[in-house]
């Protein structure tokens, strides 16, 4: 059954060719749920076009006993560990570089065809789709579970089973230009006042920059949760329940009204793209920014500090926490070897610290996290993460982004009343899920 599978990767392209269209942009490659990486990986890979054209080809498993697919940031880190592991176990290990956003889709096509890797790196919110497709195997974390951050393990737990070894967490928090604002704002109102005052005095172009173009439900989520809103309800064991959609819950509607107010009063501009946010903040033209650790390197133009977003009207903002980790393919040639590499080699301080240095995201191993916690920025992200909730990994989440983004855009444009925009989005999502 190899032939039809090898064409799966080409399908979207083929479908477009069929109707005389340029297949340059393979739609299946676009990130669907991994919102933070939408911005960040684009930064890291200026030659997107090339990458996408390759998408029509299969990435074929390298000829080795243990094959790992990792992105450009982590491949150089993993290679020496792979070599060492290979020497110890008398096997050969190959790390193949695959763009982060492509790994999921390529595993889905290459895995069942027998051409996939043994191990991939990925984000925990891929689990829903990967598990539904039956392309990843469970990972036995029992031996190392206690050494990992709880939220990281929770994120990689899906329907009662663990599917990955986490190595890093990521979430948004508040970046503050310490030249312009030396003190941490004690509350959201104080933040608004400071931002508005700086803006009115023309000290900055925009007091608070927040990615709003396109609207970004991922960055907006802390505000929603501060008002008690939520995306999906959680059962007692933390599993997200797709039948309990919270986008039109009272708290979420209040958050929608808040965004309407923030735009109307000019605290937020509706025209800030991710790149603009980075430019404005790192150029000293903004006092506050809200985004994740992936932007740390780009913000270096000004002195800054990272702290959790302050409480909003008494409610604590709970950002989505994304967790990156290693997963084992269900079609791995040697599952025991893959499992050994993960628990014996990747759940170590040394490995997690090196992955941290390459990816600038707080490590998931507690001991490694403690080592980097001296850096106040990572402390800020870690504090924010402590209040956070894992990003839902259920496949239904795919239906949420587009509808919710649209609702925010309508609010930003004043095209619809905030409460209507959110309840329409909730209706759309329910229609799509059914």
């Amino acid at each position: 059954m190899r032939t039809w599978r090898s064409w799966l990767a080409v399908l979207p392209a083929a479908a477009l060719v069929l109707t005389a269209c340029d297949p340059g942009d393979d739609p299946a490659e676009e990130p669907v749920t991994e919102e933070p990486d939408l911005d960040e990986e684009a930064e890291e890979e200026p030659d997107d076009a090339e990458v996408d054209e390759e998408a029509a080809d299969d990435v074929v498993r390298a000829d080795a006993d243990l094959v790992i697919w990792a992105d450009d940031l982590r491949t150089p880190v993993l290679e020496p560990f792979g070599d060492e592991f290979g020497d110890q176990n008398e096997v050969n290990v190959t790390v193949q570089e695959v763009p982060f956003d492509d790994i999921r889709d390529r595993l889905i096509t290459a895995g069942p065809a027998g051409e996939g890797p043994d191990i991939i790196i990925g984000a925990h919110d891929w689990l829903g789709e990967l598990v539904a497709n039956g392309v990843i195997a469970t990972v036995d974390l029992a031996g190392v579970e206690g050494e990992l951050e709880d939220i990281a393990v929770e994120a990689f737990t899906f329907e009662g089973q663990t599917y990955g070894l986490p190595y890093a967490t990521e979430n948004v928090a508040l970046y503050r230009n310490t030249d312009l604002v030396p003190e941490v704002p004690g509350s959201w109102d104080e933040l608004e006042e400071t931002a508005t005052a700086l803006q009115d005095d023309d000290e900055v172009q925009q007091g608070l920059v927040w990615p709003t173009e396109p609207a970004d439900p991922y960055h907006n989520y802390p505000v929603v949760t501060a008002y008690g809103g939520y995306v999906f309800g959680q059962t007692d064991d933390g599993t997200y329940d797709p039948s309990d959609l919270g986008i039109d819950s009272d708290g979420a509607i209040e958050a929608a009204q808040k965004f309407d107010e923030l735009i109307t009063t000019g605290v937020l501009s509706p025209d800030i793209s991710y790149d603009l946010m980075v430019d404005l903040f790192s150029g000293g033209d903004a006092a506050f920014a809200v985004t994740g650790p992936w932007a740390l390197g780009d913000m270096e133009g000004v002195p800054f500090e990272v702290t959790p977003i302050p409480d909003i009207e008494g409610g604590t903002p709970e950002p989505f926490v994304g967790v990156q980790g290693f997963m084992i393919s269900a079609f791995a040639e040697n599952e025991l070897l893959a499992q050994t590499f993960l628990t014996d080699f990747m759940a170590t301080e040394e490995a997690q610290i090196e992955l941290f240095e390459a990816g600038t995201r707080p490590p998931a191993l507690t001991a490694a996290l403690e080592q980097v916690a001296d850096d106040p920025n990572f402390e800020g992200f870690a504090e924010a993460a402590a209040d956070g909730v894992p990003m839902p990994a259920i496949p239904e989440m795919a239906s949420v982004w587009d509808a919710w983004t649209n609702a925010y855009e309508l609010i930003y444009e004043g095209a619809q009343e905030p409460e209507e925009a959110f309840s329409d989005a909730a209706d759309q999502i329910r229609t799509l899920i059914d």
Partner: protein
Amino acid sequence: MSTTTSPPDTELHGSASGGTGVDARLRTGEHPLSRVADSLSGLLVKLVLVAAFNALGIFMLVRMASLDAPWYGLVMTLVTTIALNVIYLGKRNLPLKYLIPGTLFLLVFQAWPFVYTFFIAFTNYSTGQILTQDQAIERIEQLSVTTLPDAPRFDAVPFADGDDLALLLSDQQGQEFLGVPDDGLVPLQELEVVRDADQVVEVEGYERLSLGAAQDRIDELTEMRVPIEAGEVQLVSLTTATLREQTRFYDPETDRLIDEATGTTYVASERGRFVSEDGTETLTPGWRVVVGWENFAEVFTNEAIRGPFGRVLVWTYAFAFLSTFLTFAVGLGIAITLNDARVKGRKFYRLAMIIPYALPTFMTALIWRGMMNRSFGVLNDMLGVAVPWLNDPNWARFSVVLVNLWFGFPYMFLICTAALQSIPDDVYEAASIDGAGGWQRFHGITLPLLLIATAPVLVATFAFNFNNFNVVYLLTGGNPPIVGAATPAGHTDILISYTYRIAFESGGGQNFGLGATVAILTFVLVAVMAVLSFRWIRPLEEINE
């Protein structure tokens, strides 16, 4: 071999009329020596090419055989390779020598994707339904294997005595056992142990397996189970073992899956899922099955898809028509201007016109997006205005067409320049003598003659823009959103970007079957347009005759 000496047409006719006519003509050629030289080098080239193709064919056969490819793939590759050898090494089959490469490319790049897309449209191929049934069964069985709560964990080292395998296990308290399949755990103290520098190297004839040797027997090690009171110990990595239990088992005789923990029986459904007998529980993952016309029915009946469909379709036609018409008008205008000998520096301008065409859409569409930003974009900054280029529905439609015009006019400019240069000057001279003015010459001569040459291009451009995913997706993402739409849709969404939202960004993941279905329906729409257009063009062509 003769390809280097005579044009294809002659040969085709020659061969069709007499079979050996070409060879005869070759033999009686005027320059026998040069022909021999040509045919020698031609022969060499041919041999090298055929050899290269054979090498590729053999490589593919070997690779396919090693990957358990289906038999028809092997047969097709084999037949193609043999056929090519027969055709190109033989002296006959001259027409085929010309037809085969084109036919092969047509089959590979046009027919096969079409057939494949068509096939996918009749399946439920989507997230959760990508495996074969056998793979799905194996996954369901594997996923039912769980580590028991509070199960003891052991550090493990594989040992072997000839064909027999065993595990040296040490529990959390540091107690050591030899675990033997069928026999269970035996404390190490009771056994004859050989140690070398604290490391156990031999127990009761079982020798420590080197890691390389363990790799060679990895399947046996994976399957190995050591019974203890609470269950069976098995390896979870090459260094640890624990108690695990599998609860779901497939019974091939009844084609049912049985969960031994709950006693539930699951039956394979026509939808490619195992469903419990009472119909309440469905197992993950499923497999791909043929569902007939279901996807087509879904497109027409599902409210989620049908909702904004009409609006999107109207805008798709408008966008494609406007894009085609405007690029043609602008391209033609510039081509006529630059075709006039009085314009100085024409070469420079012509080069400059090509720039938008030469830059990758990916980069430039995103740059346009930045330039059109309402508050921070260069456009509004320079003009000193606050136009909502991408935020207001009508402005956004305007911007998409504008940017697409920028992308598209250089191509039209190229085509029109070429076509203009092929119109003989004496026609214009004659018209001037007859007293025709500029507009009359354009309307009476240039445009009709140009349309004959460019009409097929216009039809192709329309078809291309009908599916111009890149520009829409990168510039506006289909937005601004339509208020109150049943499913997410935007004012600048065209059919293909809307399909993308439905098939790949919503529901429970990706729905390739539905995507393929809409691709086929789109193809029908475009094909109908093309046929109608060509019928409309035909009278124009007759003018030329």
